[in-house]
């Protein structure tokens, strides 16, 4: 089955038949997922539809009871979020996951600090602070994030800027996929638009973006495709160009059958179909 997917390099991430239950509660039941390379895929769904469970399964935060995840065609199993990160899948969480009293460069390199070359680094474990600051500054600049100084602590930044730092960090380390779990939930209107602009720039750098969001206008403003989740599984994938916002909401809430909207799911060979 890997061969079939290997022939399809346009897919960044795929999942088939994911299932997860917590006792009697079925959080995910045969959920599929397809993420093309270099696209922004919005994942929408009602509260309790299982969006978060899906995302956690993709980012290694939980291990699904059944089903498979594929990264660029290769089957993978993330035991921890760290494993996902090492494979090139970064996640930005809605709670602003930055250490506020560290500076921007320290936050960018948190958990992945760079040591100095030579004896100072290997024996005395001294950090290459200057190098990290330079890299962080260069990276912030390519993403067009303006801050006064790379050395200012994150607590001096606004909510939007903090989320921008978290996003920049994900974009810096994520080689393949960046997963954003409601990155704008804690932000105001202006800050939200700044973050959305930044998400676009991250995509333009060639990364594939998964965006979980509750805000339909936001989704329609930025997404290339929309994955609609309901009752623990994927109902449809639609394009914001061909489907109206009200129809997406209707499918999401069950008022409209998924076959009543135009699917934006190309006939990619799926791993399970490929085997049959």
């Amino acid at each position, binding site marked *: 089955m890997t061969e079939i997917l290997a022939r399809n390099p346009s897919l960044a991430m795929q999942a088939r038949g994911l299932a997860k239950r917590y006792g009697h509660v079925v959080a995910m039941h045969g959920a599929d997922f397809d993420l093309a390379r270099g696209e922004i895929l919005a994942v929408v769904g009602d509260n309790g539809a299982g969006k978060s469970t899906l995302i956690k399964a993709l980012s290694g935060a939980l291990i699904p009871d059944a089903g498979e995840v594929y990264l660029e065609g290769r089957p993978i199993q993330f035991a921890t*979020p*760290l494993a996902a*990160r090492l494979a090139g899948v970064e*996640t930005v*969480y809605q*709670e*602003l*996951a*930055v*250490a*506020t*009293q*560290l500076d921007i460069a*320290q936050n960018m390199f*948190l*958990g*992945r*600090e760079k*040591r100095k070359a030579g004896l100072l680094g290997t024996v*005395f*474990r*001294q*950090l290459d*602070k200057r190098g990290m600051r330079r890299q962080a500054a260069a990276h912030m600049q390519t993403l067009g994030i303006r801050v006064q100084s790379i050395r200012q602590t994150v*607590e001096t930044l606004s909510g939007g800027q903090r989320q921008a730092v978290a996003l920049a*960090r994900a974009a810096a380390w994520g080689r393949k996929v960046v997963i954003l779990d409601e990155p704008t939930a804690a932000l105001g209107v202006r800050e939200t638009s700044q973050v959305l602009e930044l998400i676009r720039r991250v995509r333009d750098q060639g990364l594939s973006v998964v965006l979980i969001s509750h805000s339909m206008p936001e989704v329609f403003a930025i997404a290339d495709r929309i994955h609609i989740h309901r009752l623990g599984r994927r109902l449809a994938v639609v394009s914001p160009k061909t489907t109206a916002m009200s129809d997406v909401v209707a499918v999401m809430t069950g008022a409209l059958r998924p076959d009543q909207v135009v699917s934006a799911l190309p006939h990619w060979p799926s791993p399970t179909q490929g085997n049959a």
Partner: protein
Amino acid sequence: MMLWVALTLVLGYVLNQTAWGVRVYAIGNSPLAARLNGVNVTRVVFSVYVVAGLFYAFAAWQALGRTPIADPSGYQIANLDSITAVVIGGTSLFGGRGGVAGTFIGTLIVVALKNGLTQAAIDSLYQEIATGLLVMLAVGADQYLGRGQRA
């Protein structure tokens, strides 16, 4: 005294110049953020306790030099003095903020105060009241400043 200067320098270096130090600050600041960034929080916290234990050992060793007997109930309020010294030195009880240099100065302040009171022939009972007031002042200031930052 030289031992403590050396230990202070070593700890200052480790906290400011190594990845471990950055992670200790990050965890003190927000354990959740640290964990989400791939820091093994349990391991770092454990190592902090190990280092602290090592320092207690040094302190106990020196204390033994002062009193000829190993009294299991000795230095009972020494932890209060330590907390005072650390908080006066600018370390936040909320975590994530502080430094070794501050603690060193804080220690000098506390010791100077106690010594001064002894020299002035003030009863040790009142000395405890003095340190208690100092703790209240320092912790109060910390709480007050901390609240300002969280808000």
